[in-house]
């Protein structure tokens, strides 16, 4: 399988203000529930600071990233046929009634586009969206160019996603074009395990508790015992499945993968992944962890862009982008450089 679709450009935007992780741990309530992995969450996280949006909105982060991607591609917004918002946490107004897709369509002047949002997958929403976008582009000649974007802004005191990571605010954007010969998307695989749909969730306004003066209804909530019991045992198995299936679709083997882009959750998580799949440090981008922490689904774009710009990915390389999402989903995509 070769979708015949390539990545025309990819970009991101991080708000300029930074907050040290030590200050985040000071300001936020950190749960004390024990982790299955033998780690000290605060000591071993491996993130120094994250970017915080402050007064910038989630959509404005996405808009800036999208403008950068368009500029890089030298593309007129009026040429965009499809716009997909793949943001995985709440935006300005409640979903699924609303998404930022229409707002960005307006702000960019992408007048002929169809603008929608993919609202599943957690941090694997980029893969889910790639799969949908590639299918829609492959199915008709009407869709030649697609803009995929995300804008993530967490509530002020909800940067800690215990027991996984610390969250950075930011936006990302990718432009896909049919027939683009470089950075070709060869295959995309997504898997979901519905049983663990509620390991991570945000309660929502209608579930707010009496006396919630801190806006906890808008905070990411983790079921740590369920995470330990249900997610940890299958996580690497599911990674293996989606990566193997993505490779099998194009008749390639793991040893042919030149470079990996993997989420920036924590040092111990990266180590576990590399050990499980015997990936040497030079074949995976891990630098983003210390620089900015985790950006939900945008990790896949940001770390890909940085790996590319810093010379880790070369012409001819087969690149694997792989992630898990919200405990219940996994994605793998193969990009031929």
């Amino acid at each position, binding site marked *: *399988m070769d979708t015949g679709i390539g990545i025309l450009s990819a970009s991101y935007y991080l708000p300029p203000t930074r907050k040290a992780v030590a200050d985040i741990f000071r300001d936020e309530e950190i749960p004390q529930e024990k982790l299955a992995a033998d780690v000290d969450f605060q000591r071993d996280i491996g993130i120094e600071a994250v970017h915080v949006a402050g007064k910038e909105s989630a959509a404005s982060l996405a808009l800036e990233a999208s403008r950068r991607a368009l500029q890089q591609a030298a593309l007129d917004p009026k040429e965009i046929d499809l716009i997909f918002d793949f943001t995985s946490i709440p935006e300005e*107004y409640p979903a699924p009634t609303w998404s930022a897709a229409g707002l960005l369509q307006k702000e960019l002047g992408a007048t002929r586009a169809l603008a929608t949002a993919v609202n*599943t997958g957690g941090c694997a929403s980029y893969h889910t969206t790639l799969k949908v976008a590639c299918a829609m582009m492959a199915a*008709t000649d009407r869709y030649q160019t697609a803009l995929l974007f995300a804008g993530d802004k967490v509530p002020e005191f909800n940067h800690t996603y215990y027991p996984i990571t610390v969250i950075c605010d930011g936006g990302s954007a990718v432009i896909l074009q049919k027939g683009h010969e470089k950075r070709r998307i060869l295959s995309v695989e997504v898997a979901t395990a519905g049983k663990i749909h509620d390991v991570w969730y945000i309660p929502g306004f*209608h579930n707010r508790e009496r006396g919630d003066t801190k806006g906890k209804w808008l905070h*990411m909530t983790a079921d740590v015992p369920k995470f330990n019991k249900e997610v940890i045992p299958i996580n690497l198995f599911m990674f293996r499945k989606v990566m193997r299936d993505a490779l099998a679709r194009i008749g390639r083997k793991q040893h042919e993968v030149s470079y990996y882009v993997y989420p920036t959750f924590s040092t111990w998580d990266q180590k576990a992944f590399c050990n499980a799949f015997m990936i040497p440090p030079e074949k995976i981008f891990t630098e983003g962890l210390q620089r900015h922490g985790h950006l939900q689904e945008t990790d896949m774009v940001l770390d890909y862009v940085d790996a590319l710009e810093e010379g880790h990915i070369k012409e001819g390389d087969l690149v694997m982008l792989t992630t898990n999402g919200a405990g219940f989903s996994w994605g793998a995509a193969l990009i031929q450089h």
Partner: protein
Amino acid sequence: MEDLAQREGVNPATVLTLGIEEVPACDTETASSLALAAAREALQRASVEAAQVDVIVDYSILPQEYLVPAWNMSNKLQHELGATKAFTVGFSGGASGNFLMALSAATAMLQTDGKLKTALLVAGDIAIPGNHIVQGNGPVTVLGDSAGAVVLRRDAERAAVVDVEIATRGENHDVCYIPGGALERHEPAMYRLTIDGPRYEAALAGDHLKKAAARLLERSGLTIESISCAILPNVSRAHHARMLEMLGLAREQVCACKLRDQGYLQGTDFVVNYLALTERNALKPGDHVFMVSDGMGYMSAAALLRY
């Protein structure tokens, strides 16, 4: 309807003009429990085992049990149905047009991915308490609580999806939305579905949807007169009349409308109206069914099915 209007503090006389006499309303059910029942029914009618489903596509429009997109009902359904090999996708925005968005995406996936044969489209929508009657310049529609499900199968012998055309108007992204309850506003009064009446009126007066529908028909080599049946969202009697006029449809072409009995069910309108049509044996092989939504001024969408 009078009771509902009084409970929601709306003049009953203004609501009765919508042409909606009653709407289904939940008591203790959740949106996902409704969706589960609808999905099971659809799978049973299609004689498809849940384990055969390759992709579950959620087209819900109203807030779910937890906040979307961090959580999505489709994963819970995957588990409860036992759709073990499926993966999940959901779409946001576009009001009833979101069903046609899901239809378009699912059809494309089935057409282009040899590994995917069966898709389950599903939604569960329950109105925010006290918000069944949606206001713009006065009542615009009345929401019924509901769920819908559709099974798509590659190479199915009837009811083939011929084509879908969708276009959006970004400037109308906030004509129909919930102003509070996410990052932007936290006041309880803002947590209700709201329509900007004047902008919605202006959108209906435009030709965006008409052009989208015309593009679809032209691609398919059809005329509006050759359509056997048009399925419209059940927004209101007045909305129907405007859609008929805009699209050049004859009243007898709109032959399956649950407006009076069920009110506006978002994308599930297309499912219940289609089912009403098939249950009346109103379609014969080769008939073209035209599904059209104005997406509350944001998403202009049309789909063509061949029965």
